[in-house]
């Protein structure tokens, strides 16, 4: 077995690992870095996959970092799969083509990302099944789609909606199915989701909310889908079903190695796991949500970048603490700009002391909502007019007391002019 010695080892080579490499190289130019990627090419932008599928960009066009990035940063990039970790011995075993490499490391980053969630659906094993979270998925789908006219997309979240838009651009008939009563149930309220849904329907997508697919059926050729059956018995005649329910942390390797794993790999503020010298970040990790006050997976690209950067600095010996994140999404799908952050749709909003202010302009299709608790912003949704999202996010992040702040009515665009002079100056001279 071939043996490779490195100082830093990254398992994974997407947002988290890229950010870690950049952080490490900003303070340590010399020590060897190796990265293992089970996707080729490494370094593409996952959120751009809808653009690729729609044919608007090619693979080169969706590269987050080009191939020169790895060379420039002196990263030994290995296309293969890490299948075993020994955190005592500090080694990883990687299969590359048909051989196995043993890698000895000093510092390890688990940046294994997420894996798509597939729900139990009767008959699903017998038909061609697709997910949409990797470049490989997108390429497989691209090859499949010419044979297909009608597609059922399972999951009305970010992935499902982005995918539906691309499928419409390709002229496919699309049925979007969401289990909860409205689209994007985790990040939008009924009203915001309603405005978006109206636009999605106008673009020709059939939307079925409050339903789930219980069974898929193949009538003719084996493996060829004939229809998907909903829980109310309705049959949707389609030739392809795509799972877009979301991702769960890919923790298999970490679990097997004996790392502490809860819903994701457990990390502290420095992104270090239960084993010293071993770090985790991004979709694979369980992160601190500063609004919910709990730890949970936050599988979002910017958060993978922030946590990867934090991990990188700490791996290279510069102590840095991750201040926590929360659910945060900017959307552009079907031409509706939306920013939604934190607890934008609290469950018991009339109890539990939430102060919820909303503003709706139905003609301009503008909807804005700010949720305050104990004087602090804990969540907000901006739809249609989103230009001040960052200012509101900053107030939320910095736990600024907004009691008595002029301009806190959601009807108004919040600008720096509304903030106290001290805060404004700090921001402008940052």
């Amino acid at each position: 077995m071939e043996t490779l010695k490195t100082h830093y080892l990254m398992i994974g080579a997407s947002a988290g690992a890229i950010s870690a490499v950049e952080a490490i190289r900003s303070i340590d130019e010399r020590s060897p870095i190796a990265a293992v990627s089970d996707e080729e090419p490494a370094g593409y932008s996952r959120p751009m996959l809808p653009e690729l599928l729609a044919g608007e960009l090619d693979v080169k066009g969706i590269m987050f970092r080009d191939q020169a990035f790895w060379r420039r940063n002196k990263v030994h990039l290995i296309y293969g799969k890490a299948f075993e970790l020994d955190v005592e011995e500090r080694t990883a075993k990687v299969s590359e083509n048909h051989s196995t490499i043993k890698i000895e490391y000093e510092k390890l980053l688990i940046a294994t990302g997420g894996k798509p969630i597939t729900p139990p659906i009767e008959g699903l094993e017998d038909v061609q099944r697709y997910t949409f979270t990797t470049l490989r998925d997108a390429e497989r789908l691209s090859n499949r789609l010419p044979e297909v006219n009608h597609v059922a997309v399972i999951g009305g979240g970010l992935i499902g909606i982005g995918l539906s838009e691309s499928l419409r651009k390709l002229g496919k008939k699309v049925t979007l199915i969401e289990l909860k009563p409205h689209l994007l149930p985790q990040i939008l309220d009924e009203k915001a989701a309603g405005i978006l849904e109206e636009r999605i329907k106008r673009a020709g997508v059939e939307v079925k909310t409050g339903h789930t697919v219980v069974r898929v059926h193949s009538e003719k050729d084996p493996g060829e889908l004939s229809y998907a059956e909903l829980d109310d018995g309705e049959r949707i005649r389609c030739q392809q079903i795509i799972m877009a329910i979301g991702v769960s942390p890919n923790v298999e390797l970490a679990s097997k190695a004996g790392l502490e794993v809860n819903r994701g790999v457990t990390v502290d503020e420095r992104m270090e796991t239960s084993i010293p010298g071993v770090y985790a970040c991004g979709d694979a990790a369980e992160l601190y949500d500063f609004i919910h006050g709990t730890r949970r997976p936050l599988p979002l690209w910017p958060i993978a970048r922030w946590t990867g950067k934090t991990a990188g600095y700490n791996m290279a010996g510069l102590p840095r603490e991750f201040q926590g994140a929360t659910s945060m999404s900017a959307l552009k799908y079907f031409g509706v700009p939306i920013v939604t952050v934190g607890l934008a749709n609290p469950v018991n909003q009339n109890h539990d002391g939430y102060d919820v202010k909303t503003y709706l302009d139905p003609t301009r299709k503008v909807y804005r909502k700010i949720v305050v608790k104990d004087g602090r912003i804990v969540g907000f949704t901006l739809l249609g007019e989103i230009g001040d999202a960052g200012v509101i996010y900053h107030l939320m992040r910095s736990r600024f007391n907004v009691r008595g702040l002029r301009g806190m009515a959601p009807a108004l665009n919040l600008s720096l002019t509304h903030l106290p002079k001290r805060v404004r100056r700090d921001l402008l001279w940052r």
Partner: protein
Amino acid sequence: MGCGLCEVYCLTQHSRSRDILKAYKRERPKPLSRVRREVAHPLSFALQCRHCAEAPCVDACLTGAMHIDEKTGAVIHDPDRCMGCWTCIMVCPTGALNMDLENRIVAKCDLCGLSGEPACVANCPNGALEYREDPPWKP
């Protein structure tokens, strides 16, 4: 005093013709000003990207369009790589980024290509804007 000349000169600077009248009246797609007048009398100031050393927009960008120029440290946006996802707008604490709705991308201050004083500074009649560099940028 909130005269707005910074916006006029910024827009012109970022037009194809570099001619005020043509830029305002004729050019399509419409050129956009990247500086914005913030007015709440008696307060008024020009807001443009602060070119943060540790820029939240750069870390949050989904495509790599937003980046730090290695030579100058300026926060630069590559329109060809932008897909208009608005993630940078979500995290910019000053609200200095603009939406170019016609092209569905972000438009921001590029310090006028770093060729001397930016247009907003050079044309401020009141000397309210000045261009100053922080301590030398180190990548």
